[in-house]
């Protein structure tokens, strides 16, 4: 059983405080999810970095291809009308 094989890799997400999203902080190896959470607590929350931990096996994540980055970014580039500053309102309206 103690062959050279690695334990599965887990990606670690931490919610730093109530009301915020969980954010990716790093990864670690562990035999199962429970141990992954225990290890994540020791490694990634030694200084009150978080109040909640998610662990996800790395193989469960599907990622977009890096060369598709432009295709994700560019189409939104010329759609300025998606931003509030595109719309002209008189000053007396105030903040809207």
């Amino acid at each position: 059983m103690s062959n050279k094989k690695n334990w599965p890799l887990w990606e670690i997400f931490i919610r730093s405080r109530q009301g915020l999203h969980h954010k990716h902080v790093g990864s670690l190896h562990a035999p199962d999810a429970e141990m992954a959470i225990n290890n994540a607590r020791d490694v990634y929350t030694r200084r009150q970095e978080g109040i909640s931990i998610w662990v996800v096996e790395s193989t469960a994540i599907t990622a977009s291809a890096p060369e598709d980055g432009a295709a994700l970014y560019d189409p939104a580039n010329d759609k300025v009308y998606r931003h509030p500053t595109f719309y002209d309102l008189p000053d007396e309206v105030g903040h809207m």
Partner: protein
Amino acid sequence: MDIGILEKGFQQHVDAEKKIEAKDWMPEKYRNTLIRQISQHAHSEVVGMLPEANWITRAPSLRRKVALLAKVQDEAGHGLYLYSAAETLGAERADLVEALNDGSAKYSSIFNYPTLTWADIGAIGWLVDGAAIINQVMLQRTSYGPYSRAMIRICKEESFHQRQGYEMMLTLCNGSPEQKAMAQDALNRWWWPSLMMFGPTDKDSPNSALSMKWKIKRKSNDELRQDFVDNSVPQAKILGITIPDPDLKWNEERGHYDFGTIDWEEFYNVIKGNGPCNRQRVEARKTAWEKGRWVRDAAVAYADKKKNKEKDAA
């Protein structure tokens, strides 16, 4: 696509100060250089725990003991962040651990020196962590994203390491004459090995130019070493102890301290495995790995059992 075009695009990306991420195309040599550098860095964090662990049970007060424990625990974490960064480049954790345990991997030469007195723990925090910080602050801006992020995290944790060491030195230097002599003795033994931590001189590190071009490194070994000397001199003055270098003096023209020649023969000797503690360090790693085997096996057996139970229930 033509490899020349890919390489050109890669260099432009780096020159524009954009990070390279794990799935991006990169030259094979960039990948291999990083795997070697990051894994050596990880090994250094792990082996670096050993000289300090030597004193945990003998710390002179609870305050010092909890600080040292927390520091050593941080170093374990640093090792983990760095192994993870190396793995994003395709390295296998098991292979990296094996290379450390069979003695074929390199780690920082400084950890092959012994910690003879309690003052050595102060000197390590002050000088060794101080030197590491100078290197790591630079590496926060390295071009490889996962390495850079690991460094940012590490630097945040690192500053307490140097402060607790320097505070320890201050206490000794303000104590009895014997305590001050202990601090001086520790400085005498750790000063030159600390200077060696930055590696060979620029003219003797042929791979440095490429690492600079790829922005893996942002400063040369000699530049970093000079920063370290310039930082340390006033700190030693405050402690009231003397850096063991008769050639150390302020150079008005350069705006830096001049310092004496490093004993490079000693440096290469330690690198080759003939330092005072090389064998002992690798032995300690091997023993820890062997003694931990039953824990690793039990964890896997438990995980398998749980998985099978879930399957049976379904």
